[in-house]
């Protein structure tokens, strides 16, 4: 390949496309992000809350969108479609057609006058037609770019030139251009990432649901909009027919999923169980606990991290779960609806509801389908973009990658992981052209404000109705105007929207502000954004303070508007007092050691190591055992049917022979110092290394019922149950059976009967999570047994079958082949005994409501994946956290699935949560892509808020030297005072609190600033 291009095309501006674009743009590549609607954000922007954290979807998404919209190395092309991609990896020529917006984005201020005056009301597609918008519109309140667009389908002028044209007349900046035309862009890129997302299944083809005929039957996407504060009802839950608040709501699962007959989709859509539970929880939050919420399902699939706990909580809170498939929805009086369904015992029941929500499945959008066709990208049997087991984001066309729900239905974290993994594939392909086509940000020189008295600007945010629905924002703004040092105070609908931010920079310049307070949400997510705005306006970014009047005020005092407003004023007053005493600080940085440490040489660790080594970064791969491969050596095949052994051998060979990988067997990490960019790690053999980043991929263990190496709770359902595992040779765990498949499969072909017990050690009080992989693995093994001996009876004792996504195909195949599925629950556990030298298994069949007995030739236990006992020690060394289940805890469960809260440390594989091999590989690649955002730079920003010694006051007592956890303070023997190494100081302030002579302080976090805030808090 000749020198590759240093830019990448990303198709689709949903969360996956946005993440891929950011990872690439932050690691040395120029990105063209092509989005077909008028704004990026995709489906996630339409959601109200996200499971399992109940985060407000728009709130967590918005900073990423804004970063994307403002990124110097991301070229955003909205209203655009890719027409063709010619060429080869490293050198593609792309043609993009951009439809006219009819609004000049340079001039539009998003003031909304045009939409106010536009006479044409049209169905709002962002709200799925549930509300109306005008022909000139903003896609959603936090849209990026925050610019209006004219819908040519409805615009009166465009359809009948010469008529109307109202918008152009009223626009204060002359931004309307009704003669706008289509543009054609020809782009040269090195790689292409497809992230076109999904469409929700349209249930109007399913007559029995009544969708389209009865107004109170809505889809789950409709329901998201009905819950959303920016939706058509402003978050007041109302049913469509009569605006009445529904008191009885039913959710019907698997609409358009797991249904070959009516919906033509055999696969499971993976996310619907969780979103239905979430919607039920949130609906009751909105409309009160007297709302009854009933979910009708086939199997409850809560197979992700923290999902099972969410499910358990929901059922404890009174959400009703019915294992039943509804066959008809029919109308009752006053717009109510009657559901007819058969319960598990086959009894037909009828129940009345106010509203019915159809949990619709996911499918590839028809436009994405066309795009795949135009690009020559192959689809799989379910019409998703086809990928490979071991290269989960690679399509059949070299240089073209895919991520997100376009390759299989999946949730947000999985999409985000794949997005980073796709970025990795592009990095790997194009690393030679890194930083070749990027631009660097130049900030204007900073104004010296030392001598100026404080001139403070206060910006108070409505956050839609999140704040303004409780706090009187106008009143707070007026109040702020009177505070000492404040020269201007404004309120904004969304302070973090791009246009408000641009406006803020302008205001800072025009009013000569030298300090800024934003009263809005939490600094933990939004401070960096506003700080950058200060820099753009020529002000040091540390002259900034936030007042958290949402997360810590309006959201927690929802029923006390007066008190909340008073508190908001107090918080603003405190912030103003504090910021007035802040000083400009230097922008410190540390040089980056351009090498990585990867801990754990399983499939995830090896994939991560190779992903970085292939880009030219040296990697030390540390493995506690004396071999590569981790758990994968015990696996027979993946759920897609690919044998693991050849893949593993090939992977190991690449790792061992790679010039950039140094494998260290038989050692563990014993000590870690430093932080992102410059870690210094000591290994158990005493050797040490410097590295810029670390990836933890230490795996997990399989639960062995027969080996009581850990505490067992006799009161828990399984209690001391071992099922004769370890005591009898005919009792296997899944991995033990895989060993037989690998070594001596014919030894099983003579067996007449096999029984599998699912969920052994999972979904019980002592280990409440679902192990995600076992249902699929067990069913695949059952199918393998049928391959070996088609006459063998195979019985699966299960609780819920969780063959999520396309794994459902295996479940269908298993049933078609006559494999018997018998459900059990925690009240009727299967019992295993011995009888005449053989095994006897007894279970309770809930359909027949009677006990059944089996005498299998062998028993297979689908046992849990459990976290390693020693994982906490390693996490602690890197200052990373564990979840309640003792898996490693990522920085954010939705949007930062491979980052730790500690910068420069990433995670991958089973130490994060149980997952199949394709997902582990994708996560490892994602971790590598994130790591490359650090390794590709010469330096990373370091702490600016550091400690400072006042040598006149210091008595040289040495308390601070002893206290500092980072050895950043040392005594100066000559001057007999303490000195701080600002490169090592992390700004914790322990020394400040410990100093007896008030001689050491933390810059901008000194007693001066903090006490000013305290005093301000107590003023009236």
């Amino acid at each position, binding site marked *: 390949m000749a020198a590759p291009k240093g830019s990448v095309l990303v198709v689709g501006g949903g969360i996956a496309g946005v993440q891929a674009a950011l990872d690439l743009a932050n690691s040395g590549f120029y990105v063209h992000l092509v989005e077909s609607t008028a704004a990026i954000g995709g489906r996630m922007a339409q959601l109200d809350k996200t499971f399992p954290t109940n985060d407000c979807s728009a709130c967590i998404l918005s900073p990423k969108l804004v970063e994307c919209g403002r990124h110097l190395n991301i070229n955003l092309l909205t209203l655009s479609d890719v027409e063709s991609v010619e060429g080869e990896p490293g050198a593609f020529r792309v043609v993009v057609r951009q439809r006219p917006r009819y609004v000049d984005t340079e001039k539009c201020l998003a003031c909304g006058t045009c939409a106010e005056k536009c006479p044409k009301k049209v169905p709002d597609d962002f709200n799925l037609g549930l509300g109306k918008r005008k022909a000139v519109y903003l896609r959603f309140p936090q849209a990026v770019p925050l610019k209006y667009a004219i819908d040519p389908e409805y615009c009166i002028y465009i359809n009948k030139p010469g008529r109307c044209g109202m918008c152009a007349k009223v626009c204060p900046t002359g931004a309307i251009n009704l003669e706008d035309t289509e543009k054609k862009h020809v782009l040269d890129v090195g790689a292409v990432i497809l992230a076109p997302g999904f469409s929700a299944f349209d249930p109007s083809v399913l007559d029995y649901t009544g969708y389209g005929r009865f107004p109170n039957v809505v889809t789950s996407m409709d329901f998201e909009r009905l819950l959303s504060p920016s939706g058509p009802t402003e978050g007041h839950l109302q049913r469509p027919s009569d605006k009445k608040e529904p008191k009885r709501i039913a959710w019907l699962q698997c609409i358009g999923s797991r249904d070959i007959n009516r919906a033509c989709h055999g696969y499971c859509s993976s996310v619907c169980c969780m979103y239905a539970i979430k919607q039920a929880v949130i609906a009751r*939050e909105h409309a009160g606990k007297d709302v009854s919420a009933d979910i009708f399902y086939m199997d409850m699939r809560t197979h992700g991290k923290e999902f099972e706990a969410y499910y358990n909580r929901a059922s404890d809170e009174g959400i009703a779960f019915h294992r039943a498939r509804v066959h008809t929805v029919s109308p009752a009086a006053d717009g109510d609806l009657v559901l007819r369904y058969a319960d598990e015992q086959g009894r037909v029941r009828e129940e009345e509801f106010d509203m019915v929500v159809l949990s619709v499945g996911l499918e590839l959008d028809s436009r994405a389908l066309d795009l795949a066709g135009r690009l020559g990208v192959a689809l799989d049997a379910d019409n998703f973009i086809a990928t490979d087991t071991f290269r989960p984001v690679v399509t059949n066309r070299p240089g073209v990658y895919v991520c997100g729900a376009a390759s299989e239905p999946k949730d947000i974290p999985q999409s985000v992981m794949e997005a980073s993994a796709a970025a990795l594939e592009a990095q790997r392909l194009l690393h030679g052209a890194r930083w070749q086509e990027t631009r660097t940000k130049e900030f204007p020189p900073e104004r010296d404000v030392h001598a100026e008295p404080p001139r403070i600007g206060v910006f108070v945010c409505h956050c839609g109705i999140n704040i303004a629905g409780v706090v009187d924002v106008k009143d707070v703004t007026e109040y702020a105007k009177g505070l000492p040092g404040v020269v201007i105070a404004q309120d904004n609908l969304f302070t973090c929207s791009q246009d408000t931010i641009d406006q803020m920079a302008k205001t800072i310049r025009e009013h000569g502000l030298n300090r800024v307070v934003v009263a809005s949400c939490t600094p933990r997510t939004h401070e960096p954004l506003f700080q950058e705005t200060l820099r753009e306006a020529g002000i040091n970014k540390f002259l900034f303070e936030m007042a958290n009047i949402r997360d810590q005020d309006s959201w927690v005092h929802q029923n006390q508007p007066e008190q909340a407003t008073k508190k908001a004023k107090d*918080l603003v007053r405190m912030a103003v007092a504090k910021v007035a005493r802040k000083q400009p600080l230097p922008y410190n940085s540390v040089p980056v050691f351009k090498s990585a440490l990867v801990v754990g040489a399983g499939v995830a660790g090896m994939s991560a190591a190779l992903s970085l080594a292939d880009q030219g970064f040296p990697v030390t791969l540390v493995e506690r055992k004396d071999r590569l491969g981790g758990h994968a050596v015990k696996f027979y095949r993946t759920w897609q049917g690919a044998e693991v052994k050849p893949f593993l051998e090939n992977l190991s060979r690449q790792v061992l022979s790679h010039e950039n990988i140094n494998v260290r067997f038989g050692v563990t990490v014993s000590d870690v110092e430093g932080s992102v960019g410059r870690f210094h790690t000591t290994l158990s053999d005493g050797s040490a290394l410097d590295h810029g980043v670390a990836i933890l991929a230490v795996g997990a263990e399989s639960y062995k019922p027969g080996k009581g190496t850990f505490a067992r709770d006799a009161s828990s359902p399984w209690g001391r149950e071992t099922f004769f595992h370890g005591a009898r040779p005919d009792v296997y765990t899944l991995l033990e059976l895989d060993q037989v498949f690998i070594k001596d499969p014919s030894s099983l072909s003579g067996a007449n009967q096999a029984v599998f017990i699912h969920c052994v050690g999972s979904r019980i009080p002592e280990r409440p999570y679902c192990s995600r992989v076992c249902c699929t693995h067990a069913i695949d093994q059952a199918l393998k047994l049928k391959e070996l001996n088609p006459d063998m009876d195979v019985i699966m004792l299960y609780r819920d079958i969780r063959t999520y996504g396309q794994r459902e195909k295996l479940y269908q195949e298993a049933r078609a082949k006559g494999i018997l599925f018998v459900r059990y629950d925690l009240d009727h556990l299967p019992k295993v005994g011995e009888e005449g030298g053989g095994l006897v298994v007894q279970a309770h069949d809930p359909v027949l409501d009677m006990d059944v007995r089996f005498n299998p030739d062998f028993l297979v236990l689908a046992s849990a994946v459990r976290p390693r006992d020693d994982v906490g020690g390693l996490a602690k060394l890197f200052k990373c956290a564990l979840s309640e289940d003792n898996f490693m805890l990522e920085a954010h469960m939705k949007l930062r699935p491979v980052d730790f809260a500690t910068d420069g440390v990433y995670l991958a594989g089973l130490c994060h949560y149980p997952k199949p091999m394709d997902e582990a590989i994708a996560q490892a690649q994602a971790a590598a892509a994130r790591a490359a955002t650090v390794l590709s730079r010469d330096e990373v920003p370091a702490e600016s808020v550091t400690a400072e010694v006042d040598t006149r006051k210091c008595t040289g007592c040495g308390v601070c030297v002893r206290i500092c956890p980072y050895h950043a303070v040392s005594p100066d023997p000559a001057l007999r005072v303490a000195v701080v190494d600002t490169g090592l100081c992390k700004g914790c*302030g322990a020394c400040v609190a410990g100093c007896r002579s008030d001689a050491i302080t933390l810059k901008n976090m000194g007693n001066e600033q903090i006490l000013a805030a*305290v005093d301000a808090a107590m003023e009236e």
Partner: protein
Amino acid sequence: METKKWEPRIVAFLCNWCSYAGADLAGVSRYQYPPSLRIIRVPCSGRVSANMVLDALKSGADGVLVSGCHPGDCHYISGNMYARRRLALLKSLLEFIGIEPERFNVSWISASEGKQFAEVAREVTEKVRALGPARHLVKDF
């Protein structure tokens, strides 16, 4: 309906990495608690000195809450260990100078404990409410 009962004012020093995040999570999860806290974000509970607590009481706070990461989880390794020792000492000092020790509270709340944060906020508020307004150290007394 707004409650008209006396609302104490409590200064809360929360560490950035755990307790402040926990307080945010309480908001995200919409756990309601009384509007009595005035939260001040500090890098770490180890940053909180006796001086800061006394100053808050002197300025008229009816109570003070200091909250950090769970022992062992401090983002800065050992900050909360120092805090724990320092603040225990302070508590006995407060008693000595005649301030009800219930006005001064220390808790350990992680970033994932929004519910716990709301509970602590409620508990501390009720404790302080029961004591009535603090007058001992207020300058104009």
